[in-house]
C-alpha cells in the first residue's frame, strides 16, 4: 500500500514538476481524511479549467484517486474522488469534452465512489456513493460503479438543485427551440434522444429538464445518455462511431451503458433554450408513427407527475409549469421505426410551436 502511494506521488511529481499539487503538499492523513478540505484554504492564482481530454487517462485516474477533480456539468460543479478504475475510465471516455479543474475553492457537490473497506473488498465487491461523507444509497456491485456515478449526480441535482423546477425528461434543442421529452422507463426516450442528438439536435439533458423559475428557460447539463437493455445494441448499430461505455449488467434498470454526449452539445452547454414542444414518446414495435395533440391540462398533470421537485416549489412550481405548457405545443408520439421518428422531428418547426398548434 505504502509503496503504491509513494510511487504514485513520484509519478505526479513527474507530471507537475513545479506544481504545488495538494497531494504533494498535504500529509497523507489530510488527503484521506477530509478530501483535501485544508487545501481549499490555499490562496494564489488558480488555473483555468481544461477539457478532461487534456489530461492523460493516467493523470486523470491519479487525480481522482488523490485530491479529486472538479467537473463542470452545466450549472453544477462537482468535486469527484474515486479509486475505482472503471469510473476513471468512464469519466475519461464520457466526459472527454467537459471542463475540469484540478482545484476550485468551491464545489456544489462533494462526492466520492469508493469501495467499502470490509470483506466486501474480496467477496462480491461493492462500490458506494458518498455525498460529502454520507451514504444516501445502499452500496451496489462494483460492476455498476459508473452508472452509480450518473445516478448519484442526478440525485445531487434532484435533492439540492431547487433553484430549478426539475422534470424527469430528455431535452433537445434546434435553432434555440427545445423539445421536452418526458417518458416512463421503457418508453424509448433515451434511444430516441441518442439518435436525435446525432441528427442535428443539441443535447441539453437525457434525464432532467432544468426549468428556470424566473423566465421559464431551459438550462443544459449535456451529460452522458443512459441506454438500457436492447437499446444498447441498437444504438451501437445505428451510431457505430459514438463512444459507448462498457455495459453494466443486472442493475435495477437492467443492463446499462452510457453514451458520450456530442462534442458540440458539451461546448454549447452554457446556452439556454426556449421550450417549444412537449412530446411524450412511446416506442411500440411495428406501430405506425403518429404525432397526436395532447391537451394542455393533461400535459400539465403528467409533467407534474414526472417532476422531481414540483411540490417543493408550491405555487411557484405550478406557475412555472403552467407557463411552460402554455408556451409549448404538446404532443403524444407513438413510433415503431426510428427513421420515421427522426423524419418527424425534422419537420417540427417554429410554426408548430406556440399555443395555436396544440389545442385539441
Amino acid at each position, binding site marked *: 500500500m505504502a509503496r503504491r502511494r509513494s510511487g504514485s506521488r513520484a509519478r505526479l511529481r513527474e507530471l507537475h514538476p513545479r506544481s504545488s499539487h495538494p497531494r504533494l503538499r498535504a500529509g497523507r492523513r489530510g488527503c484521506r*481524511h*477530509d*478530501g483535501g*478540505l485544508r487545501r*481549499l*484554504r*490555499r490562496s494564489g492564482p488558480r488555473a483555468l479549467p481544461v477539457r478532461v481530454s487534456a489530461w492523460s487517462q493516467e493523470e486523470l485516474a491519479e487525480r481522482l484517486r488523490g485530491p479529486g477533480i472538479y467537473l463542470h456539468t452545466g*450549472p453544477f*460543479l462537482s468535486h469527484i474522488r474515486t479509486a475505482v478504475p472503471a469510473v476513471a475510465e468512464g469519466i475519461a471516455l464520457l466526459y472527454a469534452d467537459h471542463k475540469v479543474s484540478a482545484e476550485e*475553492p*468551491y*464545489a*456544489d457537490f*462533494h462526492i466520492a465512489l469508493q469501495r467499502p473497506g470490509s470483506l466486501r473488498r474480496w467477496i462480491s465487491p461493492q462500490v458506494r456513493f458518498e455525498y*460529502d*461523507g*454520507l451514504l444516501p444509497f445502499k452500496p451496489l456491485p462494483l460492476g455498476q460503479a459508473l452508472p452509480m456515478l450518473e445516478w448519484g449526480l442526478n440525485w445531487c441535482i434532484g435533492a*439540492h*438543485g*431547487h*433553484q430549478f423546477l426539475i422534470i424527469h425528461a430528455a431535452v433537445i434543442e434546434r435553432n434555440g427551440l427545445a423539445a421536452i421529452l418526458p417518458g416512463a422507463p421503457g418508453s424509448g426516450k433515451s434511444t430516441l434522444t441518442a439518435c436525435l442528438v446525432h441528427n442535428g439536435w443539441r443535447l441539453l439533458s437525457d434525464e432532467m429538464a432544468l426549468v428556470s423559475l424566473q423566465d421559464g428557460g431551459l438550462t443544459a447539463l449535456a451529460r452522458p445518455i443512459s441506454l438500457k437493455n436492447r437499446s444498447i445494441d441498437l444504438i451501437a448499430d445505428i451510431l457505430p462511431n459514438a463512444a459507448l461505455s462498457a455495459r453494466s449488467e443486472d442493475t435495477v434498470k437492467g443492463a446499462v451503458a452510457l453514451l458520450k454526449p456530442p462534442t458540440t452539445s458539451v461546448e454549447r452547454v452554457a446556452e439556454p433554450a426556449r421550450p417549444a414542444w412537449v412530446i411524450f414518446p412511446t416506442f411500440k414495435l411495428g406501430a405506425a408513427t403518429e404525432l397526436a395533440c395532447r391537451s394542455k391540462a393533461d400535459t400539465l398533470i403528467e409533467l407534474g407527475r414526472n417532476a422531481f421537485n414540483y*411540490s*417543493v*416549489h*408550491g405555487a411557484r412550481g405550478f406557475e412555472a409549469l403552467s407557463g411552460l405548457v402554455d408556451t409549448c405545443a404538446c404532443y403524444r408520439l407513438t413510433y415503431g421505426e426510428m427513421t420515421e421518428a427522426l423524419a418527424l422531428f425534422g419537420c417540427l418547426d417554429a410554426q408548430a410551436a406556440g399555443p395555436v398548434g396544440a389545442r385539441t
Partner: protein
Amino acid sequence: MSRREATGGRLLLRLAGRPESFATLSLADWDLVLRQAMRAGILARFCFQLAEIGALDKVPERPRRRLESARVLALKHQRDVRWEVACVRRALARSGVPIVLLKGAAYLMAELPSARGRLFSDIDFMVPRARIEEVEHRLLDAGWEPAVADEYDQLYYRRWTHQIPPLRHFRRNTVLDVHHTIVPLTARAPVAAEALATQSLALDGDGQLRILAPADMVLHAAVHLFNDGEYDHGLRDLLDIGDLLQHFGEQPAFWGDLARRAEALGLTGPLQLTLRYLERLLGMPLPDEIREAAARWQPAAAKRALFDALLLRALLPDHPSCNDGLAGTARWLLYVRAHYLRMPFHLLLPHLLRKSLLRPAERGGDARRDLQLRVEEFLRLGPPHHPAARAAAPEHSE
C-alpha cells in the same frame, strides 16, 4: 477559547451567531461553512438570516444558489407541516382533546423565529395521558398507521417512553409523535405533564391547538437536546433555543419565570447546560439574573470538564472538518448517558443488548425470530405471551 472551538467549526459558529460577519468569507470558506451547515441542518436558516439583514445578494453566486435552494425546501416543509397540523386538528376536532404542539411544529404555528429554515421529519404534540388511547384510535381512523412494525419496539414505546409508537400517514407518509409528557416514564427526573398542560397557551379561538408556555417551551427544548442522546441536529437545536431565549427574553419577567420553573420541574440540569453552551459556543449574552442561577445549578468542576469534553465535540456538526479523533466516542458516551437518564439500569441493560445484538435477527428466518422472542420472554421484555399475537406476528412483519 478551547482547541475545538478554534478549529473546524469556528467559521460556522461565528456566522451562526453573527450572520453579518459573512462579508469576510472567501469562496473556500463558503464551501466549508455550507457543508458544515448542511450537516447540522441549518443551511436554510442561514439563508433566512442573511436575507433578514439584506445580505443575500452579496453572497457569491454558487453558495447563494445553494442557500436559496435550501430555503425553497424549508418553505415546502413549513407548508406541509401547517397542512398536517390542520389535518390532525380535524381528526381530533370532535373529541375536543387539547393538542399541545411541541418543538418545531409549535415554533412554526406560533410563528416564532426558531421556525425559520427548519426542516421537519415529524410532528410532535402532547395530549393528556388519560385520553391517549382515544387519540390514537381517532388518528388511526383518519389514515395514520403505526410506523413501527417490530413488536418489541411497539411495546418499548408504550411501556417505557413518553409517547405512543410513531404514526405514519398511509398516503402522505408524514409522521406524528404523540406524547403524553416530555420525558420518559422511567426517567430519573419525571416531569408532571399536568403542570405543563395547565400552563399551556391557546393558539386558536376554541383553544384546542395549544403550545407550551414560554419557560416550558425552552425547558422542553433543553431536555430534548441534552437528554435524548442524539446530536445529529445538536447545533440546530441549540440555535433554536438561543432564538427562543432572545425572543422571550425581551419580556424582563421571563428570566425569573424560567429559573423558577426549571427548579420546580427539576430541569435545572439541562437548562444549565443549554446556557453554558449558548455562551461558550455562540457567545450569546445572557442577563446576570439567569447567569447567577446557572452558576448555582452547575455541577462540580470535574463533571463540568467532562461535559465540556463531550458536548463541545457533539454539538458541532458531525462533519469530517469538525470531528477530531474523539468525536465519535463523545457522541457514543452521550447516547449511553441519555439511555441511563431514561431508564433504570435493570431495564436499560437488556434493552441495549437487544438493540445491539439481536436486531440483526429481524432479517433472518423464522428460527432466529423464534429464538429472539424466547430470549425476550426470558428477559421479561418481550410481548405478552398471547398465542394469537404470536401467530399474527409474521404477517405483520411481511
